[in-house]
């Protein structure tokens, strides 16, 4: 009778395991396809082993995409972090204004990134958009936001920032609220100024929470697709073709399936690597922060 009891937890996870295997199968299949030259024009592909990957790494388009992706991820994560922490600090002061606004902090995050990109696309549109109209008195109207390479990249980052800053802010706010009050009270009694308190106390203690948010945002932005697709479709030219857009173009537009998947595998490796590096970094920062508090 005992063996039946031991079996029970396994029975409970069997459906989840089956589902997970069902999802893992296409992953494995994709990996398998990259070893061939499978495309719509070649439904009976030959095995080409690692040729696809070699082509990826020697293509200028790849390095261009990689560069754009990194720029995008770093830019978006950096701005979101600074802005998110700032908003969290402002909300933490708990004024009447803050408490009302906190209730609607989450809204941009709940809007589908693709819809947000559409919204911004309409706002930045030269003929109908409102942004240029509002900037005219400042002499900045007339900028073609999505028609220049720099402008397109900046606009995309702006959409990412708009959607995901609340993510950082909410995590940072939760972190701020969970910090112990006694170090701050001691500092106030000692007459420490705001900047000093922030640099020596708040920031080190808050850093672990913020870094978690940053890591997640950085890794998600490396995989960006929705925003770029809706806003610029990779244009103008190739200036905003991030890695996952490139994969889409190769696989779905040009129907070179194997080649497209190879791009995604490389991207996956990049994200995984970034995770490893950043998590190790996180461990070090957390240990340093713990020492500071002591």
């Amino acid at each position: 009778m005992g063996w039946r009891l031991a079996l029970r937890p396994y029975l409970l996870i069997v459906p989840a395991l089956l589902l997970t295997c069902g999802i893992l199968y296409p992953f494995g299949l994709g990996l398998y396809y990259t070893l061939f030259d499978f495309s719509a024009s070649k439904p009976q592909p030959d095995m080409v082993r690692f040729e696809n990957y070699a082509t990826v790494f020697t293509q200028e388009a790849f390095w261009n995409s990689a560069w754009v992706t990194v720029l995008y991820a770093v830019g978006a994560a950096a701005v979101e972090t600074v802005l998110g922490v700032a908003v969290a600090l402002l909300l933490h002061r708990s004024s009447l204004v803050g408490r009302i606004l906190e209730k609607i902090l989450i809204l941009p995050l709940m809007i589908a990134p693709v819809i947000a990109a559409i919204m911004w696309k309409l706002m930045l549109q030269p003929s109908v958009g409102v942004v240029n109209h509002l900037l005219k008195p400042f002499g900045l109207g007339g900028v073609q936001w999505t028609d220049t390479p720099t402008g397109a990249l900046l606009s995309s980052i702006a959409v990412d920032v708009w959607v995901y800053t609340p993510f950082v802010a909410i995590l940072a706010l939760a972190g701020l609220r969970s910090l112990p009050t006694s170090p701050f009270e001691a500092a106030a009694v000692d007459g420490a100024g705001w900047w000093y308190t922030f640099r020596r106390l708040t920031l080190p203690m808050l850093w672990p929470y913020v870094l978690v948010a940053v890591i997640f945002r950085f890794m998600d932005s490396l995989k960006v697709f929705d925003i770029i697709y809706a806003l610029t479709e990779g244009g103008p030219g190739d200036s905003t073709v991030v890695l996952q857009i490139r994969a889409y173009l190769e696989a779905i537009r040009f129907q070179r399936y194997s080649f497209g998947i190879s791009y995604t595998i490389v991207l996956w490796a990049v994200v995984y690597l970034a995770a490893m590096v950043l998590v190790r970094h996180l461990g070090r920062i957390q240990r340093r922060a713990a020492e500071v508090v002591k």
Partner: protein
Amino acid sequence: MRVRKRLSGLLADAALILYFVFALFPIAWMVILSLKPTNQLFSTYFSFSPTLDGYRAVLGGSEGVPFVRFFVNSLVVSVGAVALSLAVGLPAAYASARWRFKGSDNLMFTLLSFRFAPELTVIIPLFVLYQKLGLFDTYVGMVWVLQLVTLPLIVWIMRSYFADLTPELEQAALLDGYSRKQAFFKVALPLVRPGIAAVSLLAFIFAWNNFVFPLILTSNEAQTVTVGALSFLGGDRPKYNLTAAAALVSVVPPLLLALTIQRYLVRGLSFGAVKS
């Protein structure tokens, strides 16, 4: 000293309001744009005579875009995905919280790693596979692939909710004479009900907001509202006011749900983050 504090307080409030203007302005602008009649689209910015024609056009299927069908598709597919994830994920979360065994750790790790893989890695093979299996452009195909988004979320969060329950309550039920299955349904499940509600709504929002899966794996029948919103932008005469109306309509369910579960969102957002 007091004056300085008052001043810095006002500045802080002003900065906060500035951020929220930035955050809410696009939505406000969409409302304005969606109410603009087509003939006034390019002539004025803020002064216009508002009309509901845009919404009537979108919901009435103008331009040959069956927007209402897209909306229903989003609903069906999101609810279906969450339902399947609950049915499969709740037992797994419970088992993983109550018993420690090798399979559960591996399962957790695999589910977490789903979050880090690029979606296209799985979509491109599925694009090929679905056409062979006849799942392309179907509800079943979409519900299945959305598990990639909803299942990890539900399992991770419900696991922590179940782990928070002291096992003694279920033990008391066992000694009262209930079987383990009955103890789960009568004691454990009711106590995590708020957690289930919150995580279901959050998972629904993520499923609803998904773009890349329906973009590639659906065409006319099962297309969702996130893809459909782009339909009015094509061609030489993009209909900006219709696009704005479509965008707003598609954003209503997630926003309403978000306002409902606002309090529980911190736990959902940090899922996996702090633990890993």
